[in-house]
């Protein structure tokens, strides 16, 4: 059972809401963090916890684009393709990733390391082009930078180029705050 070792977390989640069903997204998110995707087994288990039928959970899960209903690679590269990022060069970046990973958008590399997605706005329009890999944002990208990030992830599983707490412009030096 997926949630067995997370019993405390599950109890904590359930305690937050007066209605059990509200724990739906937190549990689906937890299942995805645990297994990398939302499996059929997870859906059945969540249905059990929430006193729902599995189709009710599945129906809800299909609405949300972040929930993967099929296994994906270890690193999910999601490049923003919306207008704001596209204006500053998101499309060439997606092309570059396609060529260098040798996969199309929506596909996973043979070694199951990378899945490439082109997604809609991630709320980082001032620092485009940008992408999200698993939990982390990577901003103000160039082809060179993306190459280094992919190399880092392949070799060490982490990259120092991910963004910290957001502050753009860094500090408005020109503007005196009152």
């Amino acid at each position, binding site marked *: 059972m997926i949630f067995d070792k997370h019993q405390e977390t599950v109890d904590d989640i359930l305690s*937050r809401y*007066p*209605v059990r*069903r*509200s*724990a*739906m*997204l*937190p549990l*689906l*998110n937890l299942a995805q963090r645990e297994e990398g995707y939302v499996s059929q087994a997870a859906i059945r288990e969540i249905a059990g916890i*929430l006193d729902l039928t599995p189709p009710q959970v599945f*129906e*809800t899960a299909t*609405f*949300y*684009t*972040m*929930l993967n209903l099929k296994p994906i690679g270890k690193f999910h590269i999601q490049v923003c*393709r*919306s*207008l*704001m990022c*596209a*204006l*500053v060069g998101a499309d060439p970046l997606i092309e570059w990733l396609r060529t260098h990973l040798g996969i199309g958008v929506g596909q996973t590399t043979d070694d199951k390391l990378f899945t490439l997605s082109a997604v*809609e*706005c*991630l*709320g*980082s*329009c*001032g*620092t*485009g082009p940008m992408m*999200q890999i698993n*939990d*982390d*944002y990577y901003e103000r990208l160039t082809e060179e930078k993306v190459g280094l990030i992919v190399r880092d992830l392949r070799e060490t599983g982490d990259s120092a180029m991910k*963004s*910290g*707490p*957001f*502050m*753009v*412009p860094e*500090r*408005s030096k*020109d*503007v*005196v*705050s*009152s």
Partner: protein
Amino acid sequence: MKTFEKILLTNMERPGYTGSLSDYEGTGGYKALKTVLGNVPPNDLIEMVKKSGLRGRGGAGFPTGVKWGFIPKDHPGPRYLCCNADESEPGTFKDRQLMERDPHQILEGIAISCYAIGAQTAYIYIRGEFRLAAKILERAITEAYQAGHLGSDIYGSGITVHVYVHVGAGAYICGEETALLESLEGKRGKPRTKPPFPATHGLYQKPTVVNNVETLANVPHIVNRGADWFASIGAPPKSTGTRVFCLSGHVKRPGNYELPVNATFRDLIYELGGGMRSDKPLKAFIPGGASAPFLTPDHVDVQLDFESVALAGSMSGSGGITVMEEGTSMVWAALRLMEFFYHESCGKCTPCREGSSWIVQILQRIMNKQGRPDDLRTLTEICENIGGRTVCAFGDAEIAPVQSTLKYWRNEYEALIEEAEALKGSRKEIPVLSVAQAREVEGSLS
């Protein structure tokens, strides 16, 4: 260089400010909460916010105090406050900075607002992609509980406020307040038909207020410095205070800039944003996130407040300003935004669900130089059949890019369609047969 008064970004722009509880308390944080709890009657607080003229910063610009006032006074409860942190309007990224850099400013705003409307529970609905912001908020909530700023019987006043972070899973529509409530109830995030409004039938059918992150962050400052002070900033009486505007696109210095709302787009784009990133002149800009109609260089001297932008034919929306330089194809820009809306339409209302897909197909066809002479008429017609015919404002939003680009840059559409007409003779296409012709072919094969 002009200087502009700041409210929300003041703290985080101090050197060395980390947003921790001690940093926030060091700058007078939680003073407002201490002042009001048990001392100022909730009704007076609501009146104060009404008087300040604070309006929702999420997009609709509804007066916050009025929204709070809709909560029935005699309801036995429970009542809820939802902080809308589902920031997903393309062009907007202010809430992320507010949450990641100064989370306690928001928590204090939430606590005060909960007290004002008589809610004991607040949920911060944050978009699933903002993992870092969610983590920072969780940490800040733990700190605030430990210091007694949140929890049961705060400062011995008998007031209880519990705050929880609820992480979404990727759906733009969940920023719509009733869709947010549906999603928070663990369902598909589809907007509800209104009325009844959330003020009476919100989360779990109980009285609920949904406020944007930036709106709530303003509340402690209004308490500390007074409604009159807040109402004197900006463009009173209708649009008051400052807003954090998000500048993106072809400018030298994109980013978040806080300005009083009586500043102009010129101040933002040229003074603060450093102007265009290359030598190419400004061609177009979106004044308030993807849902706002495009404006032209003729509009750069328009003020940033809700009314002025509305008068110019667009909307101030969520405050995301996207700048496009000369040479950008407006048909392409409209298509990109339409693809977003097509992807994010929740599917509840037929005009929006089907219409967005038709518009995308037509725009793709025009971009691929396969447009047809009557396409522009069809586009206009589809747009007219979406606007005002959907449950939520998404329908009105999705037609904005198409209608406004058709209004100002119709010649670009026409040029592409003319090109398509010229190419028509030279293009080999798979023939489309009528039923009679198909039968004939079938007959000749057998």
